[in-house]
């Protein structure tokens, strides 16, 4: 009995570990296929990403947008919504922050930075609210609408940085530099690591408090678990869904704002290398657990950070990392299903029937 309970409580940690290990194993096979020693490749990867000061800095830099966007997917998932539009919301957030960074003048950094962040959040929130509204009020499945909006956002930003927002004389599409007062400070000296990661940690803490202690968190979870019962209890399912989708979009928007305000100081065309999709993988791997979101985001950040070095020194294409991530999601999906079956057999359910 007790062993059972122990097993039940560590499974949420075990199965993601298992999924990731399996994915890494397959990844090793792929690396071998590329003609490189997988152990050598992995050791370069993780050493560079975690054991090296500059490498760790890069890891944190890459973790920031991953963490924020994953938190967005996490929040949506709590209400039973699949937010696949993280990518587009990141772009809109970047747009929002760059507009404030470029066109608002004469403000001290203490006001300019939060204002730009707010703008990024709002732009992202709108991009999340649109599919949220369509789902809540019109019943349109949010998976397809968020996906379509990704492509729309991508092309919108592409147009904007190629034309009205373009830096004069630029060889490729990007905007002018934003004002210094709108730039995020660097937190690790001599690296590119900016305060975006701190914003991510702060957001994590806020969400933890909300879901542990506040009635809003309870409401979101109730809607996610049983919207019908929630409705019978007087909860507005529609408003909850819209709120959650807007928040998810806003968090992803913050990720985009962070990239613009902390990393590049400009809005670049296609500045997100697929963070929005990684976020989905991270959210699923974390099994609805905030600590898991942070750890998995760090892991994926490490993968991306070390992958570049791995390509340079070991000759393994960076794309193996995408393959590993995708496979990890596949394995966690299998793990989840197996777990459910295991749980049904174990629990002594006494139903009348």
């Amino acid at each position: 009995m007790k062993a059972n309970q122990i097993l039940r409580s560590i499974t949420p940690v075990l199965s993601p570990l298992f999924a990731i290990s399996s994915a890494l194993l397959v990844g090793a096979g792929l690396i071998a296929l590329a003609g490189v020693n997988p152990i050598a490749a992995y050791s370069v990867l993780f050493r560079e990403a975690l054991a090296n000061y500059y490498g760790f800095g890069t890891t944190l830099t890459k973790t920031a947008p991953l963490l924020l966007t994953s938190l967005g997917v996490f929040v949506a998932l709590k209400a039973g919504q699949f937010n696949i539009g993280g990518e587009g919301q990141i772009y809109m957030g970047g747009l929002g922050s760059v507009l404030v960074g470029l066109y608002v003048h004469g403000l001290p950094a203490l006001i300019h930075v939060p204002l730009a962040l707010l703008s990024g959040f709002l732009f992202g929130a709108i991009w999340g609210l649109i599919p949220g509204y369509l789902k809540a009020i019109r019943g349109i499945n949010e998976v397809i609408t968020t996906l379509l909006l990704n492509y729309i956002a991508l092309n919108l930003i592409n147009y904007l940085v190629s034309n009205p927002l373009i830096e004069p004389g630029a060889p490729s599409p990007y905007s002018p530099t934003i004002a210094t007062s709108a730039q995020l400070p660097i937190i690790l000296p001599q690296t590119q690591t900016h305060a975006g990661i701190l914003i991510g940690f702060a957001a994590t803490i806020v969400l933890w408090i909300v879901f542990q202690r506040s009635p809003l968190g309870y409401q979101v979870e109730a809607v996610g678990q049983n919207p019908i019962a929630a409705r019978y209890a007087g909860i507005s399912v529609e408003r909850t869904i819209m709120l959650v989708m807007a928040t998810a979009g806003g968090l992803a928007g913050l990720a985009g704002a962070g990239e613009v305000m902390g990393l590049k100081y400009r809005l670049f065309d296609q500045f997100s290398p697929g963070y929005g999709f990684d976020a989905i993988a991270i959210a699923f791997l974390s099994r609805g657990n905030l600590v898991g979101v942070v750890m998995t985001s760090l892991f994926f950040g490490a993968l991306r950070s070390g992958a570049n070095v791995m390509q340079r020194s070991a000759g393994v294409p960076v794309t193996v990392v995408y393959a590993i991530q995708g496979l990890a999601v596949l394995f966690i999906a299998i793990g989840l299903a197996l777990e459910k079956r295991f749980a049904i057999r174990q629990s002594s359910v006494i139903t009348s029937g």
Partner: protein
Amino acid sequence: MRDGETAYLRLEGITKRFGNFVANDSINLKVNAGSIHGLLGENGAGKTTLMNILCGLYQPEAGQIYLHDRAVQITSPKVAIAQGIGMIHQHFMLVPQLTVTENIILGSPLTLRLNLKQKSREILVMSERYGLSIDPLAKVGDLPVGTQQRVEILKALYRQAKVLILDEPTAVLTPPEVQGFFKVLRQLAAANHTILFISHKLDEILSLCDHITVLRRGRVVGTMIAHNSTRQDLARLMVGRDVLFHLEKAAQSSDHIVLEVQNLQVRDDRHLNAVQNVSFTLKAGEILGVAGVDGNGQRELADAIAGLRPATAGELILNGQIITRWTMQQRIKRLKIGYIPEDRQKMGLILRFSIARNLILKGFQQLPFCRNGWLQRGAIAHHATQAIQSFDIRATSGKLRVSQLSGGNQQKVVLARELSGDPTLIVAMQPTRGLDVGATEYVQQALLTERQRGAAILYISTELEEIMMMSDRIAVLYEGRFVAILDAATATVEQLGLLMAGSPAGRLSP
């Protein structure tokens, strides 16, 4: 059973387990061809499990089935059909989007051309022959429930079923319809079909069946000849002790009107009028039973009073206040209305939440569970402990997930939430559905206690016996209207049955 007569259908030692739970324990059964055999038992006794074994959906762990003295292994529904076993399920196995003909021929050997016209003609002929007239080209989803049942039966007959198993078939019929249905069954028996009639309704089994087998907790506790048995005998076997058929109720005394409903009109999900021009008053300490066959507007009426559905016309007045336009949130915050929904797992509870969290489903934004915007864990846990005690919920702590409770205990959680706080008005929609006798009695007692305290209760149910037992007055809902409001003490089953079927006898003037 006369000696020398070989049973057409024989079960020996059938045992079925689900994990640790034994649903069927060494069941023996003998049914002759051309007879109607009743299978009686309360909810959870194992009737449906046994029938699912016979129609190939479940496999028994032990035991043997014999058809005409030949041992058969019914490994799948396909095999069951091939062996001539036809099942008419409680929830019809009909695809609403397909026509009658398409439903009937579904699963027959694959052909390249469907030839619907010819098949429709064949089916029409067959339906006339058995006295079960239907329109082969109609979409099943558009048909009334009684007609759908005929399609279910025709489906079995089309496949040359010799054994017909009927699972609680009268739940969806009005009393007069039931008589017509019994006539058809007797005809089929006369044509040498073997009929197994599963029910928990004592009177029906007594009037229809030749022999009766009683199940309790998965075991056969008695097999008797119908015309030698009484209601009391059967009830005692079914439950294991003497059952009260009448509840002690103090007379209702207050004159204070709690709820006044005037000319209420409510639309259903298809924007048709489900409730039309309903008016009534409900006094404190009174139970108004609402009888009627499912689908005559009960859900819409309950929803409108609770605030889940807007009224398109009419007024709702609670304790003198007009609350018609109040939103559900407003009603929950400012009024004390308890609502017991008909499907506790779908509408009343969040299965993956703990008991404690389920108990605060309506009150999580107010004191004492929420103060200054924070959830008060202590208050929530304390409330759960109290509720577990006062409502006798079989659970060790409030942290237990509701999904791990039995149906009866789950309903107690719903009651604990809706009844604590002394509601002025209680709307109970099928509160004892799917519960065993013990849990049913608990729910009924709890509601009677509320009645004693002075709550006004609207008791909506399709079980006529229960309504007659519980109510002070009985309203009959037919096609969205209250066709009569009778005194429960003097109303008879026949009267109510006719009204439920829409007959004008004893109706209220329009």
